[in-house]
């Protein structure tokens, strides 16, 4: 029995979606050079031009697909989730607040709804949407694993200065977000580095599937089944 299956069976829809989104075979990811992961934060633009309107912000570790390439610019698309009534804030998974993007209010009209679901635990309605925008080329990783290496380095050096090491899978995705809101600034790191640590911890949280974490060594192993 797969770890976390008890969580997932009670929410078959989420389970299915996680499988769809995150269990893409690594070979497929590697083969598809248009699937990339943001290694730094990006600014969305409405056109391939710095003077075009800024449309919002893309966050580290977000998964994007390249739709069109122009010199120095990429037109990208992404799929993400937002809570009903808060379309500006896009997350990687329904109910799990891993930031993918924050959009300007005016941009929400360009979101295409793919599907919606109700989280049985919270009764919150989540919508999966797709969004397209232009960003400047450069600063991508072919997989999240490439990002976890520097993230691990930051976490293991900056987050053991004031307290004992915390274990990533001892906390939940949403809890890590709140912790880093407080603890992040105490590291004295620039904001994008704090966000990288946060994303790393969220992808290794207790309520993420091991497959979604796909850690390099040394990082925490997936939890044992039944724990």
């Amino acid at each position, binding site marked *: 029995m797969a770890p976390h299956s008890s969580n997932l069976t009670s929410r078959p829809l989420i389970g299915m979606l996680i499988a769809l989104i995150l269990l893409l075979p690594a070979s497929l990811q590697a083969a598809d050079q248009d699937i990339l992961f943001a290694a730094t934060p990006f600014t969305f633009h409405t056109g391939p031009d710095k003077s075009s309107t800024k449309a919002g912000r893309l966050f580290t570790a977000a998964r994007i697909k390249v739709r069109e390439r122009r010199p120095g610019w990429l037109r990208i698309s992404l799929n993400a989730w937002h*809570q009903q*009534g*808060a379309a*500006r*804030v896009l997350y990687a998974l329904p*109910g799990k*607040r891993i930031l993918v993007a924050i959009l300007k209010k005016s941009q929400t009209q360009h979101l295409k709804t793919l599907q919606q679901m109700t*989280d049985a*635990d*919270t009764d*919150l309605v989540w919508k999966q949407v797709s969004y397209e925008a232009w960003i400047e080329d450069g600063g991508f990783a072919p997989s999240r694993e490439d990002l976890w290496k520097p993230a*691990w*380095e930051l976490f*293991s*050096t*900056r987050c*053991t*200065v*004031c307290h*004992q*090491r*915390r*274990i990533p899978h*001892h*906390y*939940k995705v*949403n*809890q*890590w*977000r*709140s*912790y880093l*809101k*407080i603890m992040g*600034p*105490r*590291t*004295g790191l*620039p904001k994008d580095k704090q966000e990288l640590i946060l994303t790393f911890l969220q992808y290794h949280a*207790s309520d993420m599937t091991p497959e979604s974490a796909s850690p390099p*060594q*040394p990082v*925490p*192993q997936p*939890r*044992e089944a*039944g*724990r």
Partner: protein
Amino acid sequence: MSAYKDYQINRRHLLLGAAAFGSLGAIAPSLLASGAAQAAGVTGTVMTGSHWGVFNAAVKDGVWSAVSAWDKDPHPSAQLEGVMDSVYSPSRIKYPMVRKAYLEKGPDAPRDDRGGGEFVRVSWDQALKLVVNELKRVSTTYGPQGVYAGSYGWKSSGKLHNCQSLLRRMLNVGLEGKFVNSTADYSTGASQHMMPHVVGTLEVYEQQTAWPVVVESTDVLVFWGADPVKTNQIGWTVADHDAYPYMEEFKKTGKKVICIDPLNTETAKFFNAEWVPIRPHTDVALMLGMAHTLYAEKLHDEEFLDEYTVGFDKFLPYLTGETDKTPKTAEWAAEICEVPAAQIKELARLFKSKRTMLASGWSIQRQHHGEQSHWMLITLASMLGQIGLPGGGFGLSYHYANGGAPSANSPVLSGITDGGKAVKGAAWLTKAGAATIPVARVVDMIENPGKEFQFNGKTDKYPAVKMAYWTGGNPFAHHQDRNRLVKAWQKLETVVVQDSQWTATARFADIVLPATTSYERNDIENVGDYSIKAMVAMKKVIDPVFESRSDYDIFAEISKRLGKEKEFTEGKSEMDWIKSFYAAAEKQGKAKKIDVPAFDDFWKAGVAVFPIPEKSKKFVRHSEFREDPLLEPLGTPSGKIEIYSKNIEKMKYDDCGPHPMWYEPIERLGGPGAKYPLHIDSAHPQSRLHSQLCGTKLRAGYAVAGREPCLINSKDAAARGISDGDVVRVFNDRGQVLAGAVVTDDVRPSVIRLFEGGWYDPVEGGKAGALDAYGDANCLTPDIGTSKLAQGNCGHTGLADVEKFTGTLPELKVFTAPKGA
């Protein structure tokens, strides 16, 4: 009037202290001479810092001779005299020492005299050889879980000589990370695990609505089991004391302050507060009574509950008694908490009608079922509907490290890391057992290797630990049920303690390594845990006394002997590290456009102070969430305050259900089957930092007949024929301690107060059940987890009785070095 009541050290006490010092004969003068010899002729003033604040140390001929507060400290702590005395006190560890039996027979030596036997002085070389050989032997023989290095406690301030990080650094680089760690702490064990489920974050270590906002907007300020006037003396980094001027300001407004506490606290007296002398351990019942009143009188804020919380509808049937036939009325609560029903109702109405800040301390969560206390407090605050408004809501850190003092725009110093980034397959990743345990379950772990334990939704197994290395902490003070600890400790094959003081823990070690105090080495630290208003150069005041060495040097040497010196030191000296931390701060300064002086200028000046922006003075906790709960959701599954938690429901714990509830603790006043008549209030001390400085001359300012003071109500004292100043025996089934009676009505009837942190001084060292001659409160408290969820400690649970002690008074031994040392 008892000596306890006078916190100021008067001349007479100083003389008494000096006499005690002198009675050690040859030892005392040689100590002073040692300092002088190593820093001959050095005279002047050095600014440095500590948990008690920034201060100036006057040095004469290489000896620290006087201490005075920093002129920018708004409220210097009276404990500074003790800080200085800790360097020269008779309880100072001077040389590497080994327990006699252990030196002779090694780990096979009988362990039943650990804590009672003689020590033998050895050379540093011999001591370190023993330590290194044991680390190797234990990890080779027993695998990665043989060594426990979850060493916990209030280590000294400083970003480099962080002995606990250095210990783990040494084990990470030198022993491939083969050690068992601990998680969380003894202060906030229950709430730091419960709050994330309720509000998605820690709360207990986070900035509070800023004091200027409280002064301006709060109408009713409630301190619920909190005594900030006492506890804000200290800080985890270097205390700023910035809350004090604001507390003065609040006092001047004449607005209402209410203290809900079994004691008329320093804070209650300072504010001339209304004292609600609640029966201890019943706070959840009182909160439920208030909540019921609000609901019954339709005073609860339905709009707030609807917009910002989930699960009130599932909590309500419990509140009204629909689910258990027990409506949690004010009358029901009054029976339990001994606050009259009429007053409960009045308080509820008052909180609703005025802007009210519910500022809670941590005592009410260091109790059996302590998870419920702040959950229920937040439920009550949600019903009042003022969370996120200026001066309203709740706060769980006003009493800690000057929470609510506005934050400066300043760089944050980094510090020495635990070296874990280099470790492959570190012990904490192994699957054989828990590589980290909830810190307060350490004795349960030692006693029960392989036993399953529950923790916050997970089941894990205790590792089989055979050796402990403790530094920067005193478990023989902070851990509960001393006699259980004494027995469990005998299961360990080897115990290493590295400290500057002969604490009880050091006496229960096999190998004792003398560390310097902060004042015998250089370091650097931020000032103000929440204000972060300055960086202070923690300059060396004097050279190390006797053979003590800095924590950095000790662990660098052990790493060298493990063949990993370069990995440990990265080729850096003490000053190299300090400069590197500073350089990182300078870099932040540039990014944040803060003026940070060059290192040399900073080091010369001793301190760099940063401005506090107006914005910080207007900070309102949870205001962003209140403004837009969708864009600024909390870190809970729902993004809202969870009065009902599905995550907790799924854990199916019998001792922590899915919404806040009143649970009967194992024992309490008026509880079913209460065996003893008095509750032990083991609050944080007035004139120590937990157990730190108990060995100093400060003790003369509060000890009664040489013992830890025990406050007792005049009625309870009269019933037992106890007079002020008597030596009393406090006892229950778990233990017995001597203490000095202070008869006062500042403590409510049926409650005694024995501050935690009194040094454990068993008449027969190492023998479980021995009479403690000084008054360690944790001889009497139970060693159980708060619940399966948080597994926090229950230091504020416990009943006992008191009798006048008429036997022969045992001598105090814990304040001088043990035999052979």
